[in-house]
């Protein structure tokens, strides 16, 4: 869908002819009251419960979204848009600018709030005034919080899983590592690589580093330990001797098949710029003043990327604002990625909260 109006941006200026790619699951009620906006994470996409068109893999949250699942598409109309800046159909750096060439680094730096502004444009175009809920994990949770803070009347329920109201120095540091890996790849060429080869090796390194932050040390140890990859002994070379190396290389190269390096730069930047309190006079509680929405935050005890303290920080602000809020720290071994994996308690909490 092309948004009818140009999209004003936090960094100044506006983006015209904004395209939003989205998927929907489940039927919309006649009174348009059963819609759930599902926001995806950094490298996610709109294919939440349907096969990915490039990789053919199942949707990224099929265990959560579908008929009879916690986000029950027999009852709810789930809308999952691809964020602007991404590369799965919504306008991003790989999209054509008005001169017919890809934007590349001419694409404006966007924010989480800009992404959500585009989502709101989509909801307007779809004629959905009030969402039953906005739901998101990780960067999706940031979008959910941003919607709740900036368009408080648009969602009755706000569900935020494994997320934060601001990027920490450590979060920014890891993202900068990833960006520098992309930009150090000679094929990046100041972002103008669309006519030739993409900076796949740089993007793969970025993904490898990021992937480590998505898992707990316990999960890595459990999965790989010091096991060797298809060999009896160390080779005294720099092949992927260890299973963990082989796994990360596989994750890195697989990622380059489906993701655009410039999109990775722009979206990580948007996350780094995210600070909901800063947008609201430095006080997070102000972001939620007068909200009528019910909130639910979930963290995982093994998530060191967005640890429980970050969720608690949001919960404290919501309490100070007098908002109806639930919060639970769930025990799960997988680190940040727990929100995508088999954690039955998460299913129960999400199902119960959505009602």
């Amino acid at each position, binding site marked *: 869908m092309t948004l009818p109006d140009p999209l004003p941006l936090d960094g100044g200026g506006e983006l015209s002819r904004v395209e939003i790619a989205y998927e929907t699951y489940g039927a919309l009620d006649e009174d348009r009251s059963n819609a759930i906006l599902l926001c995806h994470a950094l490298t996610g996409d709109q294919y939440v419960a349907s096969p990915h068109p490039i990789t053919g893999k199942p949707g990224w949250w099929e265990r959560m979204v579908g008929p009879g699942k916690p986000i029950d598409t027999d009852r709810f109309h789930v809308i999952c848009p691809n964020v602007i800046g991404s590369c799965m159909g919504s306008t991003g750096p790989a999209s054509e600018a008005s001169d017919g060439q890809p934007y590349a680094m001419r694409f404006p730096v966007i924010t989480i709030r800009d992404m959500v502004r585009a989502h709101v444009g989509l909801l307007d175009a779809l004629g959905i005034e009030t969402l039953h809920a906005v739901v998101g994990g990780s960067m999706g949770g940031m979008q959910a919080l941003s919607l709740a803070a900036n368009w408080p009347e648009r969602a009755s329920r706000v569900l935020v899983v494994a997320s934060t109201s601001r990027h920490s120095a450590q979060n920014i540091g890891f993202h900068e590592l990833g960006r520098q890996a992309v930009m150090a790849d000679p094929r990046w060429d100041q972002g103008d690589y669309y006519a030739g080869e993409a900076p796949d090796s740089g993007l793969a390194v970025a993904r490898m580093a990021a992937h480590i932050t998505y898992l707990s040390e316990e999960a890595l140890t459990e999965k790989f330990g010091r096991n060797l990859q298809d060999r009896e002994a160390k080779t005294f070379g720099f092949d992927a001797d260890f299973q963990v190396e082989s796994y990360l290389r596989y994750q890195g190269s697989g990622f380059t098949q489906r993701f655009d390096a410039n999109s990775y730069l722009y979206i990580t930047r948007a996350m780094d710029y995210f600070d909901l309190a800063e947008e609201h006079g430095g006080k997070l509680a102000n972001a939620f003043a007068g909200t009528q929405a*019910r909130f*639910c935050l979930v963290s995982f005890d093994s998530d060191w990327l967005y640890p429980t303290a970050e969720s*608690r920080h949001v*919960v*404290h602000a919501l*309490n*100070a604002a*007098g908002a*109806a*809020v*639930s*919060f*639970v*720290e*769930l*025990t799960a071994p997988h680190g940040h990625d727990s929100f995508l994996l088999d954690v039955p*308690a998460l299913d*129960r*909490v999400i*199902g*119960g*909260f959505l*009602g």
Partner: protein
Amino acid sequence: MSIRPDLAVIAGHVSPGSRVLDIGCGDGALMMALREKDCDVRGIEIDGDCVERCVSQGLSVVQGDADRDLADYPDRGFDYAILSQTLQTAARPDRMLDELLRVGTRAFVSFPNFAHWRTRAALMFGGRMPVTRAIPVSWYATQNIHHVTVKDFRDLAKEKGARIEREWFFAGERQLGRAGANGRAEFAVFELSR
């Protein structure tokens, strides 16, 4: 669902449609009863499994430590603040009482009465820390770090300038009169205001 007598008394005396904060809400039994009365009810609970059960039932419960987290709640944000069977587990019950009467216009507090005759007898004749129906966990494992009696609580309320609006006493399921309550009651419930 039948609920504990102290919770039943509290549920029976909260006005319908009130804003309520249930501190140490456990599995949410009181919150469910209050939801039936159209109350806007929130909970705080330290145990993650309990919180998960509450949230799964659609209750608004925050996993947290009341000793620390009550400070985030605004003054007089609630019509009632409820502390059921939790006072004796607080790091500083006196400060907890202050916080209750800050966040709530009124407060309900229930606790096991350490001056119950059975407790006294266990200590006097057994010479050991009592393990009774009301205090079922051994001294080394109990979360009750500040045992309190009916008289102690009345003193604390007075010291804190809190007015005791109503009080109820129980032995098991049975409600008792006020006379001799400090020796006869296993549990006490107080409604306070300031």
